[in-house]
């Protein structure tokens, strides 16, 4: 009996599913201006860098006007770029929540303010917290991704979930490419390209003709104004090296 007892206990001891309450910093958005957000957060983080490093954050959209279109890939990028881990959103319009889910952000319940209400939010929060960092390190499945052969027009958005995105035509200004993995563009890239949108720092962007409005890898982004003009129109790759976005000619 004494021999079998540890075996019988082995399973419940290895895993346990329990609801736990976490106190998480909440970032409340009143507007969709991400440059201003970045400017707002940077001094705060400078004051207590240790506190914010890898800190899970919930984005509260309750006070954001519903008609404001929020650029979630960029928002996640800004927060990750500042060392935080956005794990979920609260409130916001149906469109906001839909795009948030596309970015693998958990949708947290609206009124988790009082301790009584917290009970409803607990399971989602507990589930979301460990899930968020996982995609950052998970290797990409080989062969996953999308190939686009027609031009990507202004206003169109193409997302290769869980893999690479290959575009064999031009990407117009005002169009947006997103991929969990690499992005390859064999026409002129005039729109935005965001590789590794879920935080894969190994992701890269390759393009044969760089004229992008914005390039981003794992949330580190650069807009066209700050691109080296010498690289315009040339084949380049964009990669993240030691936390810095490197753009170099091929």
């Amino acid at each position, binding site marked *: 009996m004494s021999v079998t007892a540890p075996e019988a206990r082995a399973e419940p001891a290895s895993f346990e599913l329990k609801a736990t309450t976490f106190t998480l910093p909440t970032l409340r958005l009143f507007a969709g201006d991400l440059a201003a957000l970045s400017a707002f957060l940077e001094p705060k983080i400078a004051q207590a860098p240790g506190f914010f490093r890898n800190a899970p954050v919930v984005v509260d959209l309750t006070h954001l006007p519903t008609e404001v279109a929020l650029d979630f890939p960029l928002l996640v990028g800004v927060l990750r770029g500042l060392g935080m881990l956005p794990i979920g959103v609260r409130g916001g319009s149906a469109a906001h929540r839909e795009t948030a889910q596309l970015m693998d952000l958990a949708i947290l319940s609206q009124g988790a303010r009082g301790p009584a209400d917290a009970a409803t939010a607990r399971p989602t929060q507990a589930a979301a917290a460990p899930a968020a960092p996982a995609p950052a390190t998970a290797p990409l499945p080989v062969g996953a991704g999308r190939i686009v052969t*027609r*031009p*990507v*027009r*202004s*206003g*169109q958005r193409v997302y290769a979930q869980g893999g690479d995105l290959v575009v064999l*035509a*031009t990407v*117009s*200004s*005002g*169009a947006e490419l997103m991929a969990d993995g690499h992005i390859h563009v064999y*026409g*002129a890239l*005039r729109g935005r390209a965001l590789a590794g949108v879920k935080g894969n720092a190994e992701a890269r962007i390759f393009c044969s003709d760089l004229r992008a409005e914005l390039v981003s890898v794992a949330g580190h982004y650069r807009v066209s104004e700050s691109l080296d003009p010498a690289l315009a129109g040339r084949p380049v790759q964009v990669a993240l090296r030691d936390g810095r976005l490197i753009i170099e000619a091929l």
Partner: protein
Amino acid sequence: MARIIVVTSGKGGVGKTTTSAAFSMGLARRGYRTAVIDFDVGLRNLDLVMGCERRVVYDFVNVINGEANLNQALIRDKRSDNLYVLPASQTRDKEALTREGVGRVLEELAQNFDYVVCDSPAGIERGATMAMYFADDALVVTNPEVSSVRDSDRMLGILASKSRRAENNEEPIREFLLLTRYSPERVHRGEMLSVKDVQDILSLDLLGVIPESPAVLTASNSGVPVILDDQSDAGQAYQDMVGRYLGESLPHRFLDLPKKGLFSRLFGG
């Protein structure tokens, strides 16, 4: 079955209605039974450009609502027996265009015509999306300036994703670029995008380049599609464009600066 062609652009004032009038007249003059529909409900103009504004009894919305049949609403052009105009309603708004209603009218027209030309309103709202939803081909009318090019690009994106062909996973809409109000002189001075610039950005088959011409305004004001003005450069350019649409291989004209004579060179004419 007719081929349904939408004339669209996104931006306003680039020449959609002028093109719809000229293109449909060009097809009709070559012997094809052609209907041209004004989708700009509430801001109708095609009847003026076609010169049939005083013969409008029933309109597109009446037909959609079953208040009149197609034969009552279609206006036969006085210059070509093959050309019919379906005017827009001036007293309604674009909400009157239902997908079922538009689909029914287009289907009935498709039984009796070779080509149905849909003159789209500006914008990307209901009128424009209804005009392009059932299309087989699209003429994207673009001026050689950046905002028009961007709007056309946006429209091309909508054509590729929100049309019936896209929704049913059929062969995509054939897209053609028509560059209008082109001025070689201003391109030369660097004030205007060149044909090549626009083609680079839109990567689209070029169906024609219509030069900026006073003949267009004169034609619109007198209700005569400019394609009937054989003497004008714009009229000839539209004739070429109709030929190219029908599969003829014609060189593009009016792209270069006219060569100046010695006299005007000396005196800066």
